[in-house]
């Protein structure tokens, strides 16, 4: 197993002296300085009324020195950010085959609906009687999630997948405590996403790692060996991070429950089985869902996401605050405090507490529900099938030239390759990825999962047309051939055609510069 993660060693600088320009710009690619190098403190792109003089109430705590912020007029602001935007790759530009991230198309109807004033311009703490439509929307999304997963309850408030993992593990911990038990160990497959052990450790559990067997899946016998009365839970990703469905998941769930433990399912890869299988039928006790993966809310350069968590009967009472209940007359209200919660029975009656202020990622709820209603039951099932079809098509079209890690049977929505096919070529997974960038593609996920060497995890999603896939496949084949033919320069010097060349990430870590500071000459003035 590769324990090193991705290499970040710098490479020899390569000279690019073809047709230099005065500005350093290259046609539509414009060099853009930092905000602090172009803004001025006295300039503002916002017109505000003059406050005038008045007696203040700041009790001597007024700010008495400059903040040091630059300002830009509106046209300067537009230019700064439009120029920056042109240095980004995006889903709207091309395939983003990042395994585990599910970079499907972000529908624009989502954006339009989220911006309706009735959703966007309402405050979480205005009287509940003034926002019945918002509460109904959250409840409707909750219903759709419960039906798709076959689970009876859902926590809507976690703000991202990792936050959802925290919520699920807290519920398990609460359930054990309610049983009067104090178990200290959580089983985590070594192929798991880093958030799994990080989450379990954050709330005080010891991690026991479960190795993958040769076919990339978890062996129920190995799970059984590791179970004891001190094991609180297993955290299992299904479909797993190798892109495979854990075919013995039901047996694993049974063994876990027999031992008095709980089954946390990491639902990051739910996109493969939406409408095809229900986690609730597989013995899952809780599962987080990444709305920004499976349900098309945009990735926005790193967020925001949303990570609602579905719960089984066993964990239902421990759902966090806030949650929605239906009154006798059919109206709904949000239970916000533990005082209110203890007056309930069933869902949330022993609520584990609060994960976040306010109600959760409403903006993402509107987007996800818009997507789900657009697809409907039939569309979502078709989307899952197309995602799995696309991944298998890519796998089968590449597995002669590239080394598929697990090729005995079909994969789910993503195909895992390792760097065996690059052996002896002098080209690493990292170099291969950088050469993909030159071809106009964002690379696949690299060096994850850790269970194979130099992992390349390719997830095309259902948003790719066959033509797009065929070109991607042809390009990957050309790159694989190029590596084998010893065309090292194509790889070690890559990327050649991007706004910046290979970035020295080692240096970024060795001497971290995490903010702009005024140059010495300015500071001295």
């Amino acid at each position, binding site marked *: 197993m590769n324990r090193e993660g991705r290499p970040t060693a710098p490479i020899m600088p390569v000279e690019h002296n073809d047709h230099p320009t005065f500005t350093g710009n290259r046609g539509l690619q414009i060099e853009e300085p930092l905000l602090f190098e172009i803004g001025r403190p006295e300039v503002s792109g916002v017109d505000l009324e003059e406050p005038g003089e008045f007696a203040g109430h700041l009790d001597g705590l007024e700010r008495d020195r400059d903040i040091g912020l630059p300002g830009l007029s509106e046209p300067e602001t537009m230019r700064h950010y439009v120029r920056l935007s042109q240095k980004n790759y995006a889903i709207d530009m091309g395939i983003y085959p990042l395994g585990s991230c599910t970079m499907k198309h972000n529908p624009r109807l989502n954006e339009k609906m989220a911006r309706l004033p009735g959703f966007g311009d309402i405050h979480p703490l205005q009287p509940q009687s003034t926002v019945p439509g918002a509460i109904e929307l959250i409840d409707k999304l909750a219903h759709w999630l419960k039906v798709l997963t076959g689970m009876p309850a859902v926590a809507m408030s976690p703000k991202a997948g990792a936050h959802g993992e925290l919520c699920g593990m807290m519920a398990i911990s609460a359930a054990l405590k309610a049983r009067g038990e104090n178990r200290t160990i959580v089983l985590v497959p070594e192929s798991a996403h880093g958030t799994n052990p990080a989450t379990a450790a954050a709330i005080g559990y010891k991690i026991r790692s479960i190795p993958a067997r040769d076919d990339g899946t978890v062996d129920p016998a190995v799970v059984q060996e590791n179970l004891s009365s001190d094991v609180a839970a297993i955290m299992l990703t299904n479909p797993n991070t190798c892109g495979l469905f854990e075919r013995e998941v039901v047996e694993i769930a049974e063994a876990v429950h027999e031992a008095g433990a709980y089954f946390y399912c990491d639902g990051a890869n739910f996109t493969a089985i939406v409408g095809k299988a229900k986690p609730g039928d597989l013995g899952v006790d809780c599962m987080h869902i990444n709305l920004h993966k499976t349900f098309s809310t945009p990735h926005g350069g790193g967020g925001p996401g949303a990570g609602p968590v579905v719960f089984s009967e066993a964990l239902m009472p421990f759902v966090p605050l806030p949650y929605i209940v239906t009154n006798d007359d059919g109206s709904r209200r949000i239970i916000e405090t533990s005082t209110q919660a203890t007056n309930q029975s069933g869902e949330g009656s022993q609520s584990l507490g609060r994960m976040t202020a306010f109600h959760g990622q409403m903006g993402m709820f509107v987007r996800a529900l818009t997507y789900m209603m657009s697809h409907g039951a039939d569309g979502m099932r078709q989307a899952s099938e197309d995602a799995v079809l696309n991944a298998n098509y890519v796998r089968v079209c590449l597995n002669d030239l590239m080394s598929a890690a697990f090729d005995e049977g079909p994969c789910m929505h993503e195909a895992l390759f390792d760097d065996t096919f690059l052996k002896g070529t002098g080209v690493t997974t990292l170099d291969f990825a950088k050469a993909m960038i030159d071809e106009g593609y964002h690379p696949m996920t690299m060096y994850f999962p850790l269970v194979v060497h130099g992992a390349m995890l390719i997830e095309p999603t259902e948003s790719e047309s066959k033509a797009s896939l065929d070109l991607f496949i042809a390009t990957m084949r050309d790159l694989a051939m190029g590596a084998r033919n010893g065309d090292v320069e194509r790889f070690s010097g890559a990327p050649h055609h991007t706004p910046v060349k290979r970035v020295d990430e080692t240096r970024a870590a060795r001497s971290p510069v995490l*903010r702009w500071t005024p140059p010495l000459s300015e500071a001295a003035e």
Partner: protein
Amino acid sequence: MRYLPLTDADRQSMLAKIGVSKIDDLFVDVPSDKLLNELVDLPLTSGEMEVDRALRVLAEKNVVAGSVPFFVGGGAYRHHIPATVDHLIQRSEFLTAYTPYQPEISQGTLQSLFEFQTQVALLTGMEVANASMYDGSTGAAEAVLMAHRLTKRNKAVISGGLHPQYRAVIENLSGYSGHDLECLPGDPYSREDIISRIDGDTACVLVQTPGFYGHLTDLEPIAEAAHATGALLVAVVTETVSFGALKSPGEMGADIVVAEGQSIGNGLNFGGPYVGLFATRQKYVRQMPGRLCGETVDADGKRCFALTLSTREQHIRREKATSNICTNSGLCCLAFTIHMSLLGEAGLRKLAKLNHRNAVRLAEKLDAIDGVDVITPHFFNEFTIRVPGSAADIIEKLAAKGVLGGIPVSRLEPGQPNLENLIVVAATEVNNDADRDAYADALTEVLS
């Protein structure tokens, strides 16, 4: 279906290439008795028009903040967001980009994060800031954990001026991580003596200023007392605009500053998505949670940016990570930094002054009403009023008259009779004289 490019002919051709006859042959690893034979019990596919119509029905049932005199704060504030901001964040290259793990094709995101981090450090008066947390409340909980790691001490002392929901989030996380918390009771009259609670077992003292009830706190004496025993001061700010008017927490001696950035660039959105600002001293940077963007060079020696110090994070460090956070608030950071660039120094200072002025004007008006008292002598843009009778009832009655007058404290702190007649009231630049008059008139009527 409009989001699915494959045709049936494509699908057939691809299945043939793979060497299977039907799609379920690819689902062979799913136990056959668990593979669904029927569609799930949900409506079928809908065109844009139908979805639009259905969602508008839900949206139109809600009272829009911008359509009424609006004075609700409590950790989320209604401000004017320039049209430029929402336009820019909808550019494909920002909206549909991923986390910038491939820096060569993510310099747009990375440079804007570097600028964001710098702005946050400047605003908070600290040395370094991260690329965001989910929101202020989860950021505050992470700050407490960070203080435990840094001091190796067990107890956190939490001010009674902290937002009750923030307190609940910290209580929840600390409860599971096994640390002790001393939470001082809710402090509407700003009478607490937090300094006397600091001792040799204190990892950190956490103070919100402006507080939940509106009070302003001089952090300097608290910082001194904390540092004298080797404890850290965590400052929490829920209204970023206040940085434009008040001494920064950094200047006053804070070691970690956590803030809710929603006020800048991000609308109310019924509670999310928001953006957590997190800043600290350079010497603590390796214990900081969350992503960090750093400056470096490329192979040509050109300045560029990359995510860095990832050995703190979950994808490298796994169970030894400083936090489990992965996805954060990317696009909300971008909205924040664009709005802050548009405002600039002059704009933010003016905006803050306007907010304070509007709050002062409103306070004077409300205090003049018989039976109503403003109990916060010093505030920024939010204060607490004491009313004769149930604050919750009065707020409902005001809503029936078309005025959203604030938050009854009992909503967030139920079961405390001494808090039942208190309302937290916010005023921002969006309120005008007509709004303030409408509030005063409606409240007078409700109380008569």
